[in-house]
């Protein structure tokens, strides 16, 4: 006897967002990347469409990062050259996008000038054809200066720039609007703030298809279940036609997963945890797998071996 399956009929779908711009669209990218558009829960192809597969952005920093050797060894001698590093991520590791982070702009660190940051963005734009995600440093005031300079220098490229927060969003929203970029709206693991922030940004005039939600990720073992449920609720909200929760979501997996001790301590130090090489790759990859199951559209990742694994997982889940 044939079983009548339960197929949900959703009122709406996740909005589609285009990143990057080709020469015809006023940029210099060789191709754009479209995310979102899902009309069902992740990978449930039997009841809706997932027109765009989740994509992986690889992290590149403007200063040589203090990452563990297992990762830096794979990246090699390009770590001090953001443009060459970005090119390697695209050519060798198959990154769909580049996530460029200006840790060097931090006033308490190297205190790189906004002009200098803008120059590096132009260099990376020249080195690769994929769309760029750019974030400044963790100092809000400096971040505004840096991102304003970058937005202007890369006008027309439709960068994904970050990030707007509930108590600091106006300058970056203005920069995105004036120079035609897309914006990351970050909320601290709180779906109400997430929604409120999207409303505030939208009220300034930035259209909803120019916003990407960053729900703030926690790594595996350190609160990923909070992220998981918040994203699941946001996705259900989008499908139930809540427009202010209907943006695609970006998850910064690399930095969070690699902050967890399990991703970097050696087997000598913790013999019960097993060999570090595979454990480290899986810590990042399983964190990614968790958020993929609740609707992540853009994964920001670090470890090339984890990227390979997650790309395979996405391909498996997209095959019908």
């Amino acid at each position, binding site marked *: 006897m044939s*079983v009548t*399956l339960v197929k949900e009929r959703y009122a709406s779908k996740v909005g589609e967002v285009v990143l990057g711009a080709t020469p015809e669209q006023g940029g210099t990218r060789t191709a754009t990347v479209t995310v979102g558009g899902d009309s069902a829960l992740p990978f*449930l192809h039997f009841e809706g469409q997932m027109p765009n597969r989740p994509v992986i952005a690889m992290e590149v920093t403007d200063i040589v990062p203090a990452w563990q050797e297992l990762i830096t060894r794979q990246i090699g001698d390009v770590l001090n050259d953001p443009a060459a590093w970005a090119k390697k991520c695209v050519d060798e590791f198959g990154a769909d996008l580049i996530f460029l982070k200006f840790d060097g702009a931090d006033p308490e660190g190297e205190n790189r000038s906004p002009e200098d940051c803008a120059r590096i963005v132009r260099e990376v734009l020249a080195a690769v054809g994929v769309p760029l995600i750019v974030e400044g440093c963790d100092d809000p005031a400096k971040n505004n200066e840096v991102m304003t300079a970058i937005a202007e220098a890369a006008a027309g490229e439709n960068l994904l720039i970050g990030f707007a927060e509930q108590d600091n969003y106006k300058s970056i929203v203005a920069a995105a609007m004036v120079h035609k970029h897309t914006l990351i709206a970050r909320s601290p693991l709180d779906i109400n703030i997430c929604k409120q922030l999207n409303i505030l940004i939208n009220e300034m005039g930035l259209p909803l298809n120019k916003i990407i939600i960053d729900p703030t990720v926690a790594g*595996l073992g350190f*609160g990923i279940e909070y992220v998981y449920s918040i994203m699941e*609720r946001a996705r259900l909200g989008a499908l139930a036609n809540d427009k202010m929760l209907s943006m695609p979501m970006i998850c910064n997996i690399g930095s969070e997963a690699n902050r967890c001790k399990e991703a970097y301590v050696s087997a000598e130090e913790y013999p019960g945890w097993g060999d570090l090489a595979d454990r480290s790759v899986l810590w990042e990859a399983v964190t990614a*797998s968790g958020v993929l199951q609740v609707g992540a559209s853009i994964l920001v990742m670090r470890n090339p071996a984890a990227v390979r*694994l997650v790309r395979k*997982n996405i391909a*498996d889940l997209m095959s019908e």
Partner: protein
Amino acid sequence: MALTGLDIYKQLPKKNCKECGVPTCLAFAMALASGKAALDACPYVTEAAREALNSASAPPIKAVKFGKDSVLGDETVLFRHDKTFYHPTTLLIHVSDTLSDDELRVKLQEIKNLEFERVGLHYSIDGVAVVNDSGDARRFAQVAAEMAESTDKSLVLLSEDPQAVKAALVQLVSRKPLIGAATAANYEAMVNLAKENSVPVIIRAEGLDALNDLVEKAQALGYKEFVLDPGSRTPVETLANLTHLRRLAIKKKFRPFGYPVIAFTGKSEPLEEIMEASIYVAKYASAVVLKTSSQAHLLPLMTLRQNIYTDPQKPIQVEPSLHSVGNVNENSPLYITTNFSLTYYSVEGEVETSKIPSYILPIDTDGTSVLTAYAAGKFEPEKITEAMLACGIADKVKHRTVIIPGYVAVISGKLAVLSGWKVVVGPRESSGIVSFSKTLSLS
């Protein structure tokens, strides 16, 4: 999933004879729905109605128990934020009976090593699935017996051949293994074997339609201790099947699928296999059988399982008493944090990395993080002072300096006055503790 009074009323005899002590059948139905009456009070209710009402009030997914404390099923929601997931996915390691005795010894040692301690929690592997790949019933029974002898974990006995399962089961009935799989070809023998020995059995068919047919046939044999296997072995198909089975059981009360589901990985490359298994752990598999048994592979998967199955309403907490990291002495610094386990272990991890033996005093904030606790008035200077007094830290160190989280710098003045200790404002994020600790001077 309680029935409404009207649902119950439809099944009643509608005589309005008052023999149940209630004026009308409808009123009796209402009383049943609110739990004020029992169905037995009605002498005229038919067997069919009794069955329908009993099964409707039964849990949507049956709890199936086997082996050493393994509980499968008994779940009530599709999303953990709706309530919680109750029974963490049972993880089982595939052991083939084609392995040589030496290989078996290695495998067994690996399985024994699958016990982990992290952030104050203990994770352990649940059991072993012995698989009759050899086709030889004697070898299968022999390997099953060896496994049973070497580990007290739960056992699963897998063979298409009921005779082979019988040979292995005879000696292990007291361990209550899960057996299988019952298929269209062997289900009578397999289900009867399970019934005679009171052990649960896996029902396997290719696809949901075939599975539905087979479950109904198997139920007709008068047994209901089932675990379902929809036969798929690729991630995308298995995800769809797991979702369909859970939805039908919970949303439609579809009884043939009201049983826990077991998933088998299809990938042979171990890292890919863990990625595949992570999908099934998040999405409704009550048990997963894995080929890899290396610590580095299982720790991430077991961590995901623990995370997903955490009750969203009850944060995990640590004991709000004085903890020490390393060989503490009278010069060790004192850090204050909250008893939310994530907060506490983030601090502990960093303090440990700093290599400076230190005291950490988590304040009882009902398991909330620093800012949440502060906003809720649970991280007040009075409370911290009280906790410092109660734990006797003053007798353990000779300095009088206490370090508080950077986010609550605002309480430092009042805390200094109340406690009489010098208050140092630490970094906002625990990740800053290592560099902070290097510049710290206790006077």
